[in-house]
């Protein structure tokens, strides 16, 4: 595909070079802050000069990780982020898949409305719901400082529902009809036929669903006051806004926390990036 495109578009040598330069500047602008994050997290003393951007063996230390771990319990934070994210993943992979299958394969009254809702929900700004959700979940249902309260607003990812529907639509109808004639139940069809066929594509959805709660700050910040229950994003943010001033190397410690928060997502993405296909996501947002 890419080769074809290239041969069709006549690109002169300067244009070819220009494109390379644009891409290189882009990559540098996107990656440099991450490189700087890692370097900064390993420095004994913060060195903001240009020379400081290059690793100096004499200045390298793991001390910042120890220091941030003393202030915010990194393991507890990662565990809380994991529980929050895991809850959302379970909700999305169970109920989202069921809804996606029903929207794509089954004929039932209300299907069109449900699909329209799944699209509409994605453009409703969460922040408009912030006040009523806080009143309902934290006050009325008493779910403040509770994993359930954290998970509930994100429980089923609507983008995932739309992407699931898209995958199942691409499967041939005859497959399902043949199995139905053989007397297979719909759950059996979903589990035994539909899911195995879309399995590689499910990785995109898992990745996309994962980053939502893992990176979410506002909602868990609102509903968790106990530090023992806060996801890492919240405890690190609290550290940045309050405690950082009193640490001996605040930037080093903050950056160490940032590395711990960013690493799981970045590693997951690098491992699975070949499954992360643009068309899948485009269809999820656009329908």
């Amino acid at each position, binding site marked *: 595909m890419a080769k074809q495109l290239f041969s069709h578009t006549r690109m002169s040598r300067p244009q070819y070079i220009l494109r390379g330069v644009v891409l290189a500047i882009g990559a540098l602008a996107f990656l440099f802050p991450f490189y700087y994050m890692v370097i900064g997290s390993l420095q004994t003393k913060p060195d903001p000069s240009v020379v400081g951007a290059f690793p100096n063996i004499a200045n390298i230390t793991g001390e910042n990780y120890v220091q941030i771990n003393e202030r915010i319990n990194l393991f507890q934070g990662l565990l809380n982020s994991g529980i929050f994210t895991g809850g959302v993943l379970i909700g999305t992979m169970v109920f989202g898949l069921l809804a996606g299958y029903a929207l794509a394969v089954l004929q039932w009254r209300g299907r069109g409305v449900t699909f329209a809702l799944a699209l509409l929900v994605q453009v409703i700004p969460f922040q408009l719901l*912030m*006040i009523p959700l806080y009143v309902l979940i934290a*006050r009325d249902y008493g779910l403040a400082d509770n994993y359930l309260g954290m998970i509930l607003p994100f*429980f089923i990812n609507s983008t995932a*529902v739309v992407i699931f529907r898209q995958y199942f639509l691409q499967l041939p109808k005859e497959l399902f009809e043949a199995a139905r004639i053989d007397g297979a139940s719909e759950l059996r069809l979903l589990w035994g036929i539909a899911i195995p066929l879309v399995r590689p594509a499910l990785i995109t959805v898992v990745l996309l669903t994962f980053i939502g709660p893992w990176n979410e700050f506002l909602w868990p910040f609102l509903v968790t006051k106990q530090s023992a229950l806060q996801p890492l994003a919240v405890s690190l943010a609290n550290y940045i806004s309050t405690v950082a001033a009193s640490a001996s190397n605040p930037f080093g410690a903050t950056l160490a926390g940032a590395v711990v928060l960013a690493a799981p997502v970045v590693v997951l993405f690098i491992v699975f990036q070949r499954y992360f296909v643009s068309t899948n996501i485009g269809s999820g947002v656009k329908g």
Partner: protein
Amino acid sequence: MTSTLTPPAVSRPPEGGKRKRRRPFFGKNPLGLLFSAPYLVFVILVFAYPLVYSVWISFHDFFFAAPGAQVDRPFVGLENYITAFSDPAVIRSFGNVGIFLLINVPLTVVLSLLLASALNKVTHFRAFLRVSFYVPYLTASVAVVAVWLFLFNGNGIVNQVLGPLAPSPSWLVNEHWAMPSIALFVTWKQLGFYILLYLAALQAVPQELYESASTDGAGAVRSFFSVTVPGVRPATVLVLLVSTVTGANLFTEPYLLTGGGGPNGASASPVLIMYQDGLQQGHPDTAAAIGVVLVIVVLGIAWLQNRFAGGND
């Protein structure tokens, strides 16, 4: 977008009219409703009901009461709206988000289309480029805010490189630069997602158009403007919409990057004010009013964008 086309099997019309009466009320596969029921309950519980409740709160005298206590919450008409918008800080936060959108939205559209079309034709280093372009989008704001604080700090590396050109006071504590810095940060942070949307749209631009443009003697630049730009217009409308909605919901960045909307409220966003006023100071009713107005403004902007950028499609 090829993948959004519905396969013909699905758009098959329902079976002949005479069999219609035999179809049960819930359709051919009522099981579909059962399968979707958890999702529908979720949408009602987390989106539909709170949405209505939000509007209701904004028209009533609402305050936090002890759980279980029966309290009177009288209807107060537009009082919450008047209270909210006679506060200059609220007005200013709307102005701030306006500045944010003016910088962020055009920059996002131009840069993401430029990078997506450059990336689209690449054969070498594709995986590396994809990873590097998407990584900021995938990473938590909180994590990257930490490194930006370090980069743009008074004697941070950005100012060291700029030397005498560095603004004083530094970026994030400078009244004039705080909001543009946040806009730049968010553009950088979210760009990967929009590149992804444009990459998907670029697959759908018919190859023949490029061929005939090139037969007509159009160079790469010319065919970019006369084939690519019109070809991805639906995606552009989407990018405008999503970046506007995202921008209007700005919270984490002014909360952390500029220490709660500083200096002197120069970077406060409406959502930050909603948090401070509604939840910290216990006025959920005026905060809900700000939220309702914010959404109406965003809907208005989205409508205008669709009207002027959407063309006929």
